[in-house]
């Protein structure tokens, strides 16, 4: 992945700073609670939600297990429909391809539809280095771009900003990028949306090159699908002469019919709507309607490495709805920036360490950015068992072992800093395999319980600083059971 977030502190340090920010916590609490209640209502409207979710899971799993076949089929379909397909193994290659395609048009500015893939590869910065200015046109992306900020949510990258902060950013920055904010702009959402409309319209009308991602790609037909709300997507997809779409290879669906599942589950999971305001579907190019040139850049960038892990590969089912962020108690308090990636929240905690590997401090700490409560799994419309993958990644960090990086099989060494944990687990394994020793130990613990400290000494201190040590009962369970037959006999 890109270097956008290089130098990020590990999650605990970043989160500590974030939870101390009262404005941030208020903004996040307000937004996540608003959307949570609405999502529940939107999902409850559909009587067959469980079946749709299961079908979504199976379609995605089937596609991933035959991904090579579907990629080749997609390439053929897109090419037959008048598009050009490019393949990019990593962020740098994708950026080079896009920069070259833009250079070939002779343009020095592009308009962009909100896209996670292009954020992931740091496309805007790469284009900037080539002298091309990329204008973000999604409202939240615009707020982030104008505020020289970082995205903190998959769907609403500016979720950490409240309306007053957004107004201030618009007033201060719009002038430097184009049409300034209207005089006397207030913080009502309708006025802020109007300011964005006026600011961006001139850019849409003169744009010659549009850059997008895609929510889905249909292998059978070569159709791409972009789901959005504001109409900025439609502007970028239909007004320019050249359209470049950068899409992760896992976004394929085998058939046109498969959309019937995801066009029901995605809007309800994401913005809690029966249907999002606008969805665009296009297949290659169409004579005299929309762009004359269409380029599809298929992006790997760690996805095939992720696919190689039999537990972790389920993360590739993700359709980027962000429902898991909105229900996560850790995300609600720590915010998106602490995750050090364009993919924050529970899905980010399993995606980033797989796409990027666990070599950096932030990536090694992400699998721990969870209480494993399972709310994310509950709401996931493609049933990704996020807690299962988190535990898998924790094991990988602590124990090391074989993984695939950049297509090569390598063996990770156990991470430093987990020596006490490993020793404790070894001791537990030894004791649980020896009933006599376990019994003797439990009795000793019960009899000495008045002497136990409230916090752990040595390397355990950090652990018990934020947790209560479990109280040891006066009598071990086995002894109690033997004495009372499970309470049937009077104690």
């Amino acid at each position, binding site marked *: 992945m890109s270097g956008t977030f290089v130098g990020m502190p590990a999650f605990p340090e970043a989160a500590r700073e974030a939870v101390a920010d009262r404005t941030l916590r208020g*903004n996040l609490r*307000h*937004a996540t609670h*608003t*959307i949570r209640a609405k999502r529940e209502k939107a999902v409850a409207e559909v009587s067959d939600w469980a*079946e749709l979710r299961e*079908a979504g899971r199976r*379609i995605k799993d*089937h596609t991933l*297990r035959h*991904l090579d076949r579907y*990629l*080749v089929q997609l390439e053929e379909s897109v090419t037959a429909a008048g598009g050009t397909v490019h*393949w990019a*193994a990593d962020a740098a290659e994708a950026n080079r391809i896009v920069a070259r395609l833009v250079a070939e048009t002779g343009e020095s500015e592009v308009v962009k539809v909100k896209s996670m893939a292009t954020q992931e590869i740091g496309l805007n910065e790469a284009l900037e280095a080539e002298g091309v200015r990329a204008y973000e046109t999604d*409202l939240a992306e615009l707020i982030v771009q104008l505020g020289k900020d970082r995205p903190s949510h998959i*769907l*609403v990258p500016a*979720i950490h900003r409240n309306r007053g902060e957004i107004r201030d950013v618009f007033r201060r920055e719009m002038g430097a990028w184009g049409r300034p904010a209207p005089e006397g702009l207030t913080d009502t*959402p*309708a006025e*802020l*949306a109007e300011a*964005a409309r006026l600011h*961006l319209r001139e850019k849409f*009308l*003169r744009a010659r090159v549009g850059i997008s991602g895609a929510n889905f790609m249909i292998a*059978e037909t070569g159709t791409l699908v972009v789901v959005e*709300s*504001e*109409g*900025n997507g439609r*502007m970028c*997809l239909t007004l320019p002469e050249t359209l470049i779409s950068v899409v992760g290879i896992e976004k394929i669906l085998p*058939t*046109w*019919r498969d*959309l*019937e*599942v995801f*066009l029901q589950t995605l809007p309800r999971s994401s*913005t809690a*709507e*029966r*249907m999002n*305001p*606008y969805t*665009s*579907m296009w*297949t290659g190019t*169409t004579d005299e*309607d*929309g762009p004359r040139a269409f380029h599809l850049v298929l992006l*790997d960038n760690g996805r*095939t490495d992720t*696919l190689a892990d*039999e537990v972790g590969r389920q993360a590739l089912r993700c359709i980027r709805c962000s429902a898991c962020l*909105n229900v996560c108690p850790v995300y609600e308090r720590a915010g998106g920036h602490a995750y050090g990636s364009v993919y924050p929240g529970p899905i980010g905690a399993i995606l980033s360490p797989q796409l990027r590997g666990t070599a950096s401090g932030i990536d090694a700490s992400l699998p721990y950015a969870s209480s494993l409560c399972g709310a994310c799994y509950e709401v996931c419309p493609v049933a990704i068992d996020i807690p299962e993958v988190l535990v898998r990644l924790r094991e990988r960090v602590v124990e090391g072992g074989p993984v*695939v990086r950049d*297509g090569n099989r390598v063996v990770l060494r156990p991470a430093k800093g987990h020596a006490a944990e490993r020793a404790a687990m070894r001791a537990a394994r030894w004791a649980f395999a020896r009933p006599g020793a376990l019994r003797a130990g439990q009795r000793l613990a019960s009899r000495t319980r008045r002497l136990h400290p409230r916090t752990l000494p040595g390397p355990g201190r950090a652990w018990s600083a934020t947790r209560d040590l479990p109280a040891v009962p006066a009598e071990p369970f086995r002894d109690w059971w033997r004495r009372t037959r499970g309470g049937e006999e009077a104690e």
Partner: protein
Amino acid sequence: MSTRERILGRVRRALADVAPDDTPYERAVERAYAREHGRLDAVAAAGLLAGNLADYRARVHRCAEDGLPAVVGRLLAGRGARTVLVPDGLDPAWLADSDARRVPDLAASTPAELDRVDSVVTGCAVAIAETGTIVLDGGPGQGRRRITLVPDHHVCVVRVPDQVVTSVPLALERLDPTRPSTWISGPSATSDIELDRVEGVHGPRTLDVVLVGRPPGGGPR
């Protein structure tokens, strides 16, 4: 080795642990979900469509075939529209009661020219009752994708009951994937400020949907 070969090779190696499976796709995925959520007759489907469109702030109007020109005329006049975009194949009778100047949908028009047009009138390919969605696919009377995007006012005529389906699966069955399509559920909106929905960003801020083919009472003809 090309990047294409490298990526395909990585995919195949990544899946080395997976047992081969040649089940045809039609049988590989179980689809236990509903084709539609309850069978609705034509009147109920139109009612649900109207309700869901209105819920997302589209303005819904219902009229019989012979009342359509008056409704369209009134909607354009109500906006003070002096110009109206007219796609190829639109029934000229629909605009018979409007004196707005007709602007044809031309490939040569620039976006800036479209931006100066007040309103656009189109038909649609299909409408989905359960989600309050109208779908345009560039067929007769629907025009290029951009003409229903740049002007600030869109009047869309839906033929009831022929063009109304209950559900998303039934709508996809009717559409041709090779045609570019636009699915519209209410006017342009955003949830980007505090995750609360606000209508009106880049697309038309006013969406009028006219359900035509039934008397205003809503009963069967």
